[in-house]
């Protein structure tokens, strides 16, 4: 037992170092990239970072803890409205706004998480779907606070003076979003390798066995929900800066379903999958709108094409490749390794193989 523990500890320290190096490398690369691209691409880079944060949080809950939430768009709304309300009358530093948004969404996450921990499968999905349908209505109802249908405007963040007077604000926002995403991913990656992460997976795979092994199942599920909600809150606050306006129409059921699409496309249970998924969420709409304008497609079709594609992808993915992009990549690698006489290829056909991508966050 002792030997196992010390080995795990060594592994953990190695993973922490590895994650930090990887994160630092990714951050430097992305910051360099942001100086080479124009305003529009920086805008897209920001969006990818935002969706990656939200999708990573959702993937922690759904892919690793087995709880499907259809309400993460609503949780993003809580983060976005927190940021917008904070910025309504005061000029506050970005970091403070982001932290407070994480805090407020996390608190709501505790309340909803306690309810959610008692729910299983379809009940949780239905309850979170109800949250997604109900929350935008609250914003419409209490106009004086939340600005009704037209929402609240969010002032843009101005780059600090030491970056020079000509530093583009889009690039500054991209830096903020990338930094937030990198920090989130490092924290999540380490969490997943910790005892908490193992508890998440144990609860997902077999609640009774997890409880017998001494894991507090309900507490684990609440924790997963709160962490996941906090990620959604951070993404929501960044979303508020990014879009410049926080209105109920932006946080409908479709946003929640887009996040589900992102983690399914990327791969359930994998952090890297969340990045793949958010790349799809950002670049499919810009691809289709570009195609639609060259082909002169009517706007009713062009505007709905991305959602139709996501819906189609979800259906086809579940029928053909339930592992998503990251899962498929991992499988190819595993099969490749098996050929060379290392680990055997795992996974059953047609069944979501949760552990396969999860082992490589």
């Amino acid at each position, binding site marked *: 037992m002792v030997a196992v523990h010390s080995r795990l500890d060594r592994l953990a320290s190695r993973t922490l170092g590895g994650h930090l190096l990887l994160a630092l490398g990714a951050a430097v690369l992305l910051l360099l990239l942001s100086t080479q691209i124009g305003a529009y691409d920086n805008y897209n880079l920001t969006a990818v970072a935002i969706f990656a944060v939200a999708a990573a949080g959702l993937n922690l809950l*759904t892919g690793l803890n087995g709880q499907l939430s259809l309400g993460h768009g609503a949780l993003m709304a809580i983060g976005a409205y927190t940021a917008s309300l904070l910025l309504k009358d005061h000029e506050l530093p970005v970091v403070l706004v982001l932290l407070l948004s994480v805090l407020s969404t996390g608190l709501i996450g505790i309340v909803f998480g306690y*309810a959610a921990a008692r729910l299983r499968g*379809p009940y949780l*999905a*239905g309850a979170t779907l109800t949250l997604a*349908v109900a929350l935008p209505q609250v914003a419409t109802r209490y106009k004086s606070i939340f600005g009704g249908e037209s929402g609240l405007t969010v002032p843009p963040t101005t780059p600090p003076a030491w970056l020079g007077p000509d530093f583009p604000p889009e690039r500054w926002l991209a830096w903020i979003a990338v930094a937030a995403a990198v920090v989130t991913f490092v924290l999540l990656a380490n969490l997943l390798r910790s005892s908490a992460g193992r508890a998440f997976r144990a609860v997902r795979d077999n609640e009774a066995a997890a409880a017998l092994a001494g894991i507090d199942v309900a507490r684990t599920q609440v924790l997963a929900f709160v962490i996941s909600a906090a990620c959604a809150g951070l993404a929501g606050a960044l979303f508020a800066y990014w879009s410049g306006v926080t209105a109920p129409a932006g946080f409908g059921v479709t946003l929640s379903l887009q996040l589900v699409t992102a983690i399914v496309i990327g791969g359930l249970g994998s952090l890297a999958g969340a990045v793949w998924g958010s790349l799809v969420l950002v670049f499919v709409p810009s691809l289709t709108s570009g195609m639609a304008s060259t082909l002169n497609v009517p706007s*009713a079709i062009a505007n709905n094409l991305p959602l139709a594609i996501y819906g189609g992808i979800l259906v086809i993915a*579940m029928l053909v490749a339930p592992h998503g992009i990251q899962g498929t990549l991992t499988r190819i690698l595993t099969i490749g390794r098996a050929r060379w006489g290392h680990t055997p290829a795992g996974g059953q056909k047609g*069944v*979501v193989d949760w552990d396969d991508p999860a082992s490589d966050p």
Partner: protein
Amino acid sequence: MSRFFVLSLNGLTQGAIYAAMALALVMIWRATQVINFAQGAMAMFTTYLALFAIDHGVPYWLAFLVALSSGLILGAIVERVIVRPVESAPPLNVVILTLGLLLFLEALAPMLFGGQIRSFPPAFSIVGLHFGNSQVAFSPFDAFTLGSVLAVMVLLLVLFQKTDLGLRMRAAAFNPDVSRLLGIRVGRMLTLGWSLASLVGALAGVLIAPSLLLYPTFMDQVLVFGFTGAVLGGLDSAVGAVVGGLLMGFALSYVGGYLGSDLETVGALVILIAVLMVRPRGLFSRHRLRQA
């Protein structure tokens, strides 16, 4: 006439529609142990087909039949083409599949029928009936809504309880393996079950469209209300779904009337959470515990 009475009448009519939605969800849940989150979107789509028919000069009644029959066909297609191949996959996969269908249909509808908000004609007048000198907040269309939901439910009851086909469908849902050994075509029974559920959903769509207006996501809240009603009733009980749906109709009518119609969905969320906390197996379920 007191406001409470008016709201109660309204709640009864709305409740009948939510009951239909709840029943559609329960029928599929009992047959396949899946919540069909695309139920609302499918009903939205069939309602658009009915409106498309009306736009092209088809009389209301024929359009009504278009909605119901396209619901029947859509349900069969969805079961046969999309759900059947993942029959043995984990429940999460099937749920994600229905979510994909929901997104797809809600994007396809504005592509085919245009994205603008449309009004949908009612079958009868929506002006309250006159009894002597006083006008009651109960219109001929409300009577039609109640009557048609009731008729469909009686027909389903007769089908499931009195006919050989109904018995086979119940057997197929109860124990597919044994039913298969006994020579029941379980696959066909499942397809038929999805078809009938989808028909009931389509009925809810055409009945509620006149009061909600028609747009691609207009059935989202009806789905949520129906789901809450179904959970309230116990998710695996058809009677429970109907009672739960009616209770939701009354409750949300009072919430809408006294607190504001924007809060109906919040009311549904509160009711759903309360039921799941206090009595998760619902009012009518025979099971002691909810299934994972």
